[in-house]
């Protein structure tokens, strides 16, 4: 009688293929992202929502790594988790203490948010269906600063400038809001 292991071990390469491992990693990342996103939307406590958002953003960073874009992944963590989420948490902490009751859901708010997200979903879906997904001719794993810098200032110069424009608008907005608050306080 041939033992079971003697059959299994030589056939392991056929049993576990690298594509499958990659697929498993992909679905794991997708799962983490979706779980984070769902808890960011449906949980009642705002601090849990923001933690869900952080998990989702880490999932997206994982997707970038899966797609061989280390730079984007690290920037995703540095900017979205490190700067944006922390400022949101900071703002939240300055608001409601933990022992207060969870706020109730307002029906109008729910409807409005569902409407907006459906519209955005429709937009994205139409974009996804229109885009022909072709495999790239070659995959680059050249993520040195020189390459990234060259690309930012040549091929993606316009996008780069647009983003800085958005940032300028945000800064002006922040100054206006903070300045008005100060003025009102000093008038009182």
């Amino acid at each position: 009688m041939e033992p079971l292991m003697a059959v299994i071990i030589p056939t392991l390469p056929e049993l576990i293929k690298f594509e499958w491992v990659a697929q498993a990693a992909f679905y794991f990342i997708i799962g983490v992202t979706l779980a984070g996103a769902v808890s960011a939307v449906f949980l009642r406590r705002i601090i849990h929502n923001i933690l869900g958002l952080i998990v989702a953003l880490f999932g997206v960073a994982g997707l970038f790594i899966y797609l061989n874009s280390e730079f984007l992944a690290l920037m995703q963590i540095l900017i979205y988790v490190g700067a944006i989420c922390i400022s949101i948490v900071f703002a939240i902490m300055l608001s409601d203490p933990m022992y207060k009751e969870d706020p109730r859901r307002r029906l109008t708010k729910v409807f409005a948010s569902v409407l907006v997200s459906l519209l955005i979903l429709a937009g994205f879906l139409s974009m996804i269906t229109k885009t022909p997904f072709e495999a790239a001719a070659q995959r680059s794993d050249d993520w040195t600063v020189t390459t990234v810098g060259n690309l930012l200032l040549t091929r993606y110069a316009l996008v780069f400038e647009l983003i800085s424009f958005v940032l300028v608008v945000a800064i002006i907005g922040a100054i206006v809001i903070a300045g008005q608050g100060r003025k009102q306080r000093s008038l009182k």
Partner: protein
Amino acid sequence: MSPISDPGFLLTILTQAVEREPGFWNWAFHWFSQEIVVAVIGLLLIIAFVTINAIGLIYAELKIAGHIQRRPATMEVGWHGFLQPVMDAAKLLVKEAMTPTAVNRPLFLAAPVIVFLPVLISFIVLPFSEKLIVRDLNLGLLLIFAFSALNVIGILIAGWASNNKYSLLGALRSVSQNIAYEIPILLSAMSVVVMANSLKMSELVAAQDKIWFFIIQPLAAIIFFVATTAETNRLPFDIPEAEGELVAGFHSEYSGMRFALFFLAEYSNMFIVSAVFVTLFLGGWHGPILPGLIWFLLKVYILVFIVIVARWTFPRLRFDQLMTLAWKVLIPLSLANLLVTALVIKLVR
């Protein structure tokens, strides 16, 4: 007797498998390919090093503090109290890990782990010597900066989940301090990156083959040192846990091993920021005669020594002084430094 319970069974099967199927070795080699072996060994080494480093630093801190205050410090356990930190660690391990009733339980339990994670990740790219580096990523420096954000989130969660006003205040202070001091760190590191033209740790060190960046960029080095001391919540900047006013800040409610994890993270962070400083400004593993690893550790521990001495010599800054220092002194200075560096490089080349 069934074949499974035979101890030599697996071995015979393996040899049979190899004889019958040469493809098996190919597969096994791929599966345990170099990368995975390096990753596993690297992780084990990191965990061992983190523990030993923390124990050594706690002893150093006890002794330095003692001698600065003209007392012998710990003397009882082992030679000159050498085993005291080991005993402390053992005590913390067996101590009951209390969970106060009013806390938000899942987050309270998760916080120490979240604080400790970036430590493990940062060690991956630290260049201990020319060859002793777990992964020499192209964006190594960026990896450390990106994951240091996780540390803040952990502190925030700890402070919030503890449901204690001192903890929450400590966490809030920690965040505003971190937001303020992350900018000068990034800017001063940038001026070195501009000179070395790379974010890869090995290339950053290699760029200092002839002359250390500390000599060319003294201002950036000082800014980086001050700001990283603030980031690790060490004493002139330990507002988040100022024991005089906040009990212990964000880890007031923690005890046992969970408290130890916070401590382990703090001492490891001290090592990490000093190691990054050595990589950026003090030529990493470069040095005459002695092997690279010894030079690297020597430089790092001299820096750590300075940080510890600073803790016991300087008084704590007030919170507004802390913010003024970051926003009105360090950030403008580092911006100007970056500008001048870029200009000079363009003019020289």
